[in-house]
């Protein structure tokens, strides 16, 4: 048996020879419940990446010439770029020629007009994941865009949303229906050449969601996209673009799962948010991609670029609960361009077994009196490594800018690691920047207190971890806060040993 900090520095013998950590270790290891594969016929492109593949994807989606050119420009840039290695993660380099860049259920080829025409197998997949796509069964007040491998299967409540002028549809469709909007904003926040994975995504992105909230409209329901990777040896490269016009409000949530497989799969998404004057965007993520098994075999490589730009008096809040993926590389950021704009980042990143996460945010203060808040909670268990990496930059013109950063790490066991890499660059003397960081452990004494009051070890650990995450969970839309707590509980199972 191993002595983790859960059994502390004391001799870890009990009357029955069992330490607390062994109790926790012996908690039932629930399977990754979203790990099933849907048997469905798919059209999957041969592995490999060249200009023909990009032309194929573009043609498949009947894209206008400008978009094909845009993709090719990104691809040519990508070929000149190198995979970044600065993150605190290690993995064998990805063989980009071994992946397939497009896969769609065959039944989607005829573009079903309504839910009745959608393959029942697809609907059953989402139902099994707890995402019913029939509007009458769906979570009240939540519209869902369901993306399966490279295509959007269905988007619910569209008619209801369009009554108030809100556009919520697959981006592949928006390209045809709202070309001016897409052309104007696509790549405006994350340029094609921004970084290696963003360039790759720009070249091969398949589907994703497009949202436009008109001036002064408060979106009447939560919008959400549910991403599902199903096909083997495929990458998922979704592209999400959300534009909140002046004075509008929207809350958006994304969820992600994938089957359990021994090979690693690549997910390289780009999300762009545009909050025009006085607009507010709240973007929440519950990321539960397959994390790999206990020995670190398989799992998703989650290399994602998310960024928003805030115009005058606008506000963007990123809230993320990251429990899945073998490797997470992700820094949802805010460019605070307009005066008095506000950026927020609330994050819980949990790693267990051999998962690795390097995540954080960038807050770029350009406008006067811009404010940003960062609350990052990292939980490391097993042999996992978790890093917070954050940049706060105050440019010369950002008079009166303020940032508050709080960065807390919780360790469970003694074989995991937590790291913090804060970068602060201030070019304006009037800026106020505060940074607080703590590292703590789930202690023996805390566990013993809980157990002495009659709670079992499993309940105790999840309660302690949930308490640690409270400040972030309260930022999630209510429907998902409970879900996030449960997800954490499952992800922690067998977390110590």
């Amino acid at each position, binding site marked *: 048996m191993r002595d983790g900090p859960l059994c502390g520095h*004391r001799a870890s013998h009990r*009357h029955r020879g069992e330490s*607390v950590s062994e109790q926790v270790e012996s908690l039932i290891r629930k399977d990754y419940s979203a790990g099933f594969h849907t048997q469905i016929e798919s059209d999957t492109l041969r592995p490999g990446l060249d200009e023909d593949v990009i032309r194929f994807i573009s043609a498949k989606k009947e894209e206008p010439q400008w978009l094909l050119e845009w993709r090719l420009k990104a691809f040519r840039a990508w070929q000149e770029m190198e995979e970044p290695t600065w993150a605190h993660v290690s993995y064998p380099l990805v063989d980009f020629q071994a992946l397939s860049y497009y896969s769609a259920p065959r039944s989607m080829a005829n573009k079903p007009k309504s839910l009745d025409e959608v393959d029942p197998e697809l609907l059953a997949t989402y139902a099994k994941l707890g995402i019913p796509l029939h509007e009458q069964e769906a979570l009240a007040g939540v519209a869902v865009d369901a993306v399966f491998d490279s295509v959007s299967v269905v988007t619910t409540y569209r008619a209801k949303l369009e009554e108030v002028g809100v556009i919520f549809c697959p981006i592949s469709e928006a390209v045809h229906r709202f070309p001016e909007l897409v052309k104007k904003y696509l790549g405006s926040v994350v340029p094609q050449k921004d970084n290696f994975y963003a360039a790759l995504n720009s070249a091969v992105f398949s589907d994703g969601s497009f949202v436009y909230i008109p001036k002064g409209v408060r979106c009447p329901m939560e919008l959400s996209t549910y991403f599902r990777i199903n096909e083997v040896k495929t990458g998922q490269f979704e592209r999400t673009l959300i534009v909140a016009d002046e004075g509008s409000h929207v809350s958006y949530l994304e969820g992600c799962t994938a089957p359990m497989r021994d090979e690693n799969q690549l997910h390289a998404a780009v999300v762009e948010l545009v909050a025009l004057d006085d607009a507010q965007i709240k973007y929440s993520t519950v990321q539960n991609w397959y994390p790999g098994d206990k020995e670190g075999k398989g799992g998703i490589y989650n290399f994602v670029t998310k960024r928003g730009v805030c115009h005058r008096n606008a506000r963007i809040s990123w809230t993320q609960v990251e429990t899945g993926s073998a490797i997470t590389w992700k820094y949802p950021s805010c460019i605070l361009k307009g005066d008095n704009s506000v950026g927020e980042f609330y994050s819980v990143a949990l790693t267990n077994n051999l998962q690795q996460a390097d995540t954080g945010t960038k807050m770029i203060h350009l406008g006067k009196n811009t404010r940003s808040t960062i609350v990052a909670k990292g939980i490391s268990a097993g042999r996992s490594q978790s890093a917070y990496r954050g940049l706060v930059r105050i440019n010369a013109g950002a008079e009166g800018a303020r940032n508050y950063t709080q960065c807390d790490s919780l360790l469970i066991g003694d074989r995991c690691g937590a790291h913090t890499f804060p970068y602060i660059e201030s070019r304006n003397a009037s800026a106020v920047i505060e940074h607080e960081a703590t590292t703590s452990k789930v202690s023996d004494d805390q566990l013993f207190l*809980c157990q002495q009051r009659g709670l079992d070890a499993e*309940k105790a650990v999840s309660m*302690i971890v949930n308490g640690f995450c*409270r400040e972030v969970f309260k930022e999630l839309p209510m429907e998902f806060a409970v879900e996030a707590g449960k997800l954490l509980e499952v992800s922690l199972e067998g977390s110590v040993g």
Partner: protein
Amino acid sequence: MKQAASMLEIRNLSARVEGNDILRQLTLSIRPGEVHAIMGPNGAGKSTLGNVLAGRPGYEVTGGEVLFQGKDLLAMEIEERAREGVFLAFQYPVEIPGVSNMEFLKAAVDARRRHRGESELSSFDFMKLARDAAKRVSLDQAFLKRGVNEGFSGGEKKRNEIMQMMLLEPSLCILDETDSGLDIDALQVVAAGVNAMRDGQRSFIVVTHYQRLLDYIVPDHVHVLAAGRIARSGGKELALELEAKGYSWLEDEGV
């Protein structure tokens, strides 16, 4: 119906912490409704006894047996002992940041109730009980919403322990130096809480270094622990004798 004649039966209990033998063949019998004070010099094993009974990891039992209401206590898991009715009021209660006292207490009370085959309390009913208990230990209602012991003063932590004890209604309460670090007002509040729970059935082990607490919680029996075993037992007057003479005379008498 067989009423357990004994609450706790400790026979020749030996225990070790970090390789050191602390308890040496300790024997003690407690009947329902009795209050036993355990006194003794530092390092005598007073706190070890409470921790061993509660099953704290790191306290290794090397011999002897303990029957709690006729059941083998040492064979039970930590949480099982708690649910059976053994409560340890901690000398140094730890903080659990972000977990509200209310949430924590409700989970504990529900675990105890489920164990007894009772239904869980509704949030509303539990709130009423918790508010009442808080009042009885003079804790402001706001403490129920705060994180468990988070930012509590020493006295508030101890009162919080007594509040938990009231809500969990244990059969055997072990108070581990609950008086340490308390001013006289807090001491009286704690003692009044304990005395209110004396109902002729519930038993108490009051571990203390000083006689002062026993002015307020009057014990039926006082035991002096030295070198891991009970060196002397007596009535409440023994505590006064200890107060007057200190502990060194025990050693002088060669016990």
